[in-house]
């Protein structure tokens, strides 16, 4: 029983560590900002989740009493990672991209984060067309 627990905890630690280092290496290695966003928000969060599960198993098998505290942190991290990713992606879009450089979103609307008050609409070809479009929509 103790042997199985040791193998389980060691495997969780090694897998978590590998995921963590891969996620952080992706932050250095990947070519541009939007792809770089993928590595830490997914891989590194998963690595930390693995380590916290190992900690949970360690205290359940070898500690004085089992505790579910680590699961709470894991859940908190898993809930907040997408929100962090969304905020960073949004700030990057507004900082370094113009509204008409973005890919077409396929509908008769602008990207939601640029809203109705974006300086140029994505639909239509010329500027005159754009302004009438926008006036009609407003």
């Amino acid at each position, binding site marked *: 029983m103790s042997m199985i627990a*040791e*193998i389980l*905890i*060691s*495997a969780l*630690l*090694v897998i*978590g*560590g*590998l995921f*963590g*280092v891969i*996620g*952080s*290496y992706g*932050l*250095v290695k990947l070519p541009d*900002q939007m792809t*770089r*966003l993928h590595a*830490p928000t997914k891989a*590194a*969060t998963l*690595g*930390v989740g693995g*380590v*916290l599960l*190992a*900690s949970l198993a*360690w*205290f359940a098998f*070898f*500690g004085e009493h089992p*505790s579910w*505290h*680590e699961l*709470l*942190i894991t859940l*908190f*991290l898993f809930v*907040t990672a997408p*929100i*962090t990713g969304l*905020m*960073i992606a*949004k*700030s*990057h879009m*507004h*900082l*370094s991209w113009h509204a008409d450089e973005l890919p077409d979103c396929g509908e008769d609307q602008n990207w939601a984060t640029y809203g109705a008050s974006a300086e140029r609409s994505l639909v239509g070809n010329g500027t005159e067309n754009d302004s009438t479009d926008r006036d009609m929509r407003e």
Partner: protein
Amino acid sequence: MIEYALYFAFCCFGLGLLFCLYRILFAPGVSDRILALDTMTVNMIAVIALFGILHDTTMYFEIMMLLAMVGFVSTVAYAKFILRGDVIE
């Protein structure tokens, strides 16, 4: 066996922290720095959890929880600040 796995995980997350530090120092944009700082917080939580296993104590739970919350709030506040020039409108 757990001890070796623990030291391996320590090395992994230490290396991850160094990668984050590199990205903070040589970042092409501000949002990259925010992302690197957020990853640094997450890696630090893992290091503290490993430290708790190594010393066989549950004392570090509160530190991890506080670091997770403060890291999340500060990341969102920083992103919001460079997005709008203001944190709370």
